[in-house]
C-alpha cells in the first residue's frame, strides 16, 4: 500500500491545475441544460479538447493523452476544485465511449470517438420509454430490417433523454426480434437526432430547465454501420454501459470533495448563531466525501491491476447518490430562510444550493433507481435468491 502520489502523478496534477486555473471561466456559464448554456458549454468542450484535457485517459489517436485511471481521477479532482463547468459531453465520453472501446469496430471508433471528444458530436442516451424505466427490458420501440437500404427502420418513443433537445446523436436499445425472450432480441443503435423520421421535444425538468427530451421515431433509418455489437445482443452491450454509469466513470470523487469543501466554507461563514447540531451534519458530509475518495482509490487500484467491477458498482451508486442529497440538505439547513431562494449561481447565494439539491435528488432515481441497486447488491453481491 502506498497512499502517496508518484512523482509522475504529481507532475500531471500540477500541469492540470495550472491549465485549469488559467482557463476555467471566471464567471460560471449559464446552465448547460438550456439552449443558450448548451452552446457555450460546447465551446468549452472544444477548448478542453484542443488542450487535450477532454478525455485524458483515451488513446492519443482519439484525442486523449493515454493517462492512467489514477491520473484521470487526479484530473477530475483538479477540475472540480477549479470550479470547472458542467461536462455536457459526459454521456458520450463516460457512458458510450467505454462501450465503444469494448464492442465497437475499428471503423466505428475512428469515426465516432474523435468527434465525440472534440464536442462536435454530443450524445444523449435513449434507454427509458414511457412504460420501461427501472424495468429496462420492458422496452417496446422496434427496429425493423430494411435490406434494400442496408440498415434498420426505427419506430417508437424514448423519454427522459438528458439534454436530448440539444444533442446531435442518441445511443439506445431497440427491439429487433419481437418473438425472443425479453432480455434477448434487442439491439444497440447509434441514432442521429437530426434525421428524417426523428422528432425531438424538450421536456422541462423539476428545476425548470429543458434538461430532458422525448424522442419520437417514425421509420427513422439507421444504417448497419451504426449497430453497436451484434444484432439481438443489445442487452449485453447495454449492461456494459449501465455499469459504468453506476460505477466510477460518471461520478468521480472530485465533484463531491469540491461540494464538501464548499459546504465547509458555508459553515464557516454562517456558523455564528447557527444550530450546533448542524456541525455534525457538516462533518458527516466532509467524511463521506473522503470515504468516497478512498473507496474509489481502492477500486481504481484493483481495475489497474486487472480486476473487473461488476455488480459492486451498485454499492458505489447508492453511496454517492445518497451522500450528494445529504450534503445539499446540510447546506440548505445552514442557509436557513435563504434556502428557498432559487436560481442564483454564486456560492454566496442560496439559489445555487437549491438548484444543486434538485439535481442531487435525481441521483437516487437515474442510472437505475436505488431500490433496483439494492436488489442487485442483495442478489448479485450477497447471493440472495431472486424469487
Amino acid at each position, binding site marked *: 500500500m502506498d497512499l502517496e502520489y508518484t512523482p509522475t502523478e504529481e507532475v500531471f496534477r500540477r500541469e492540470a491545475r495550472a491549465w485549469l486555473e488559467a482557463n476555467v471561466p471566471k464567471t460560471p456559464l449559464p446552465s448547460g441544460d438550456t439552449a443558450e448554456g448548451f452552446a457555450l458549454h460546447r465551446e468549452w468542450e472544444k477548448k478542453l479538447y484542443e488542450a487535450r484535457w477532454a478525455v485524458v485517459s483515451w488513446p492519443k489517436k482519439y484525442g486523449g493523452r493515454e493517462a492512467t485511471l489514477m491520473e484521470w481521477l487526479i484530473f477530475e479532482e483538479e477540475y472540480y476544485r477549479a470550479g470547472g463547468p458542467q461536462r455536457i459531453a459526459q454521456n458520450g465520453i463516460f457512458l458510450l465511449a467505454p462501450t465503444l472501446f469494448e464492442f465497437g469496430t475499428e471503423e466505428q471508433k475512428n469515426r465516432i470517438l474523435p468527434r465525440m471528444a472534440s464536442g462536435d458530436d454530443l450524445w444523449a442516451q435513449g434507454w427509458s420509454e414511457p412504460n420501461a424505466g427501472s424495468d429496462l427490458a420492458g422496452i417496446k420501440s422496434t427496429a425493423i430490417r430494411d435490406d434494400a437500404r442496408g440498415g434498420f427502420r426505427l419506430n417508437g418513443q424514448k423519454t427522459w433523454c438528458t439534454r436530448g433537445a440539444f444533442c446531435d446523436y442518441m445511443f439506445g436499445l431497440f427491439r429487433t426480434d419481437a418473438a425472443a425472450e425479453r432480455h434477448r432480441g434487442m439491439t444497440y443503435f447509434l441514432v442521429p437526432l437530426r434525421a428524417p423520421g426523428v422528432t425531438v421535444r424538450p421536456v422541462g425538468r423539476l428545476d425548470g430547465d429543458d434538461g430532458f427530451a422525448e424522442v419520437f421515431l417514425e421509420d427513422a433509418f439507421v444504417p448497419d454501420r451504426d449497430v453497436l455489437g451484434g444484432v439481438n445482443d443489445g442487452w449485453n452491450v447495454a449492461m456494459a454501459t449501465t455499469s459504468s454509469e453506476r460505477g466510477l466513470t460518471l461520478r468521480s470523487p472530485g465533484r463531491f470533495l469540491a461540494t464538501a469543501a464548499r459546504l465547509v466554507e458555508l459553515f464557516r461563514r454562517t456558523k455564528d448563531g447557527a444550530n450546533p447540531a448542524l456541525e455534525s451534519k457538516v*462533518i458527516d458530509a466532509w467524511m463521506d466525501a473522503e470515504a468516497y475518495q478512498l473507496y474509489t482509490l*481502492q477500486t481504481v487500484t484493483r481495475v489497474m491491476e486487472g480486476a473487473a467491477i461488476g455488480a459492486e458498482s451498485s454499492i458505489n451508486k447508492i453511496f454517492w447518490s445518497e451522500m450528494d442529497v445529504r450534503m445539499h440538505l446540510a447546506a440548505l439547513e445552514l442557509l436557513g430562510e435563504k434556502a428557498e431562494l432559487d436560481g442564483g449561481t454564486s456560492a454566496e447565494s442560496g439559489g445555487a444550493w437549491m438548484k444543486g439539491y434538485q439535481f442531487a435528488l435525481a441521483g437516487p432515481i437515474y442510472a437505475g433507481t436505488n431500490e433496483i441497486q439494492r436488489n442487485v447488491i*442483495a442478489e448479485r453481491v450477497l447471493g*440472495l*435468491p431472486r424469487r
Partner: protein
Amino acid sequence: MRFAFTDDQKLFRDTLRALLEKECTSDVVRRAWSADGTGRSPPLWSKLAELGVLGLTVPEAEGGLGLSEIDLVLLLEESGRAALPEPIVETTAVGAPLLVESLNTDACRAWLPLVAAGKARLTVGLEGAAFVCDAHVADLLLLQRGDELHGVLRDSVKLEPEHSVDGARRLFRVTWSASAQTRIAAGPTARAAMARAFDRGALGVSAVLLGLARHLIDATVDYAKLRKQFGSAIGSFQAVKHHLADALVKLEFARPVVYRAAYSMSRATESAPLHVSMAKAYASEAALLAARAALQCHGAIGYSYEHDLHLWMKRVWALAAAWGDASWHRARVGKLVLG
C-alpha cells in the same frame, strides 16, 4: 498511489482465518463467557504466538516480526470475524508498541520476547478510559498517570470486576499506586506515546468491528436463504434484501477508511489521529447497523440466548463504545477539520 494490500499480507490473513475457523468456533467463544475460570484459552494464545500474530509489532531483535499497523489490520479484522475473545488489541496492537516507544530499561525490554512468545499478556489503562480490559490475565499493566507511563505487575494492583454486555470481555476497575520503580517514561515524549497508544487502540477495535460486521452479514445471508415463510426463502423478499444491502454498503465504505488509518499510523503521518477518528466513527456505525439488520432479519430466533448471533452482536455493542464511540470521534474530526 496504490491502495491495496500485498500478497504476503493477504496470505497472512488467510492463514489466520484457517486457524480461527478450526480453533475459534462458537463453542470456544461461548466458553469464554463462562463465569468460572479466566475465560481465556492458553492453548489458543500459544497458537497465535506460533503464527507470529502476537509478536507482530515486537521488533525482530526481540523475537517478533517487526511489522506495523498496516500488517496487523487485516489480522484484527479476521479476529473479529471469528469473535476471538483473546486480548490481541491490548497486547499486540497497543501494549507492545507502547513498550517499544517508551522503553529505556533492560527490565522493560525483557517483556518483549515474552510477549512475542505468547508467555506474557499486556493490557493498557489510559486516562479517560473507565475500565481496563483483561487485567486479570495481564502480566504487565501499562497505566497512565498524567504525563507518566507506569508498568505495574498484576500482583501489585487491586482489581474490581465490571460486567460487560459481551460476557467474553473481562473489564476491571484498577486501583494502583505509582512509584519511581513503576515509572517507565515521563514528560512530553511519554504523553505523545500514550496519545499514539490511544489511536492504536481505536484503530485496532475499528478493524475488529469490520470483521464482526462481515460475519453478521454473512450469517444473516445464510439464514435468509434457508428460512422459509409464505412458501419462500425470506431472503427473496425485498424488505429483507434492502436491510442487508444497506448493511453491506455501510461496511464496504468503512473498510477503506480503516485501512487508510492503518496506513497513516504505520507511517506516523500528521493526519493519523484524524484518520483514526474517521475509522472508528465509520467502523462503529457500520457494525452497529450490521448487528441491527442481522437481528431484524433473524427475527425471534436471533433474540434467543441459545442462538450464536448475540455473541457477535454484543461484541459489536461493546467495541462500538470502547476507545471512543462514533460521536466522540466525529467530534474530534470536527475539531481537526472545522477548527
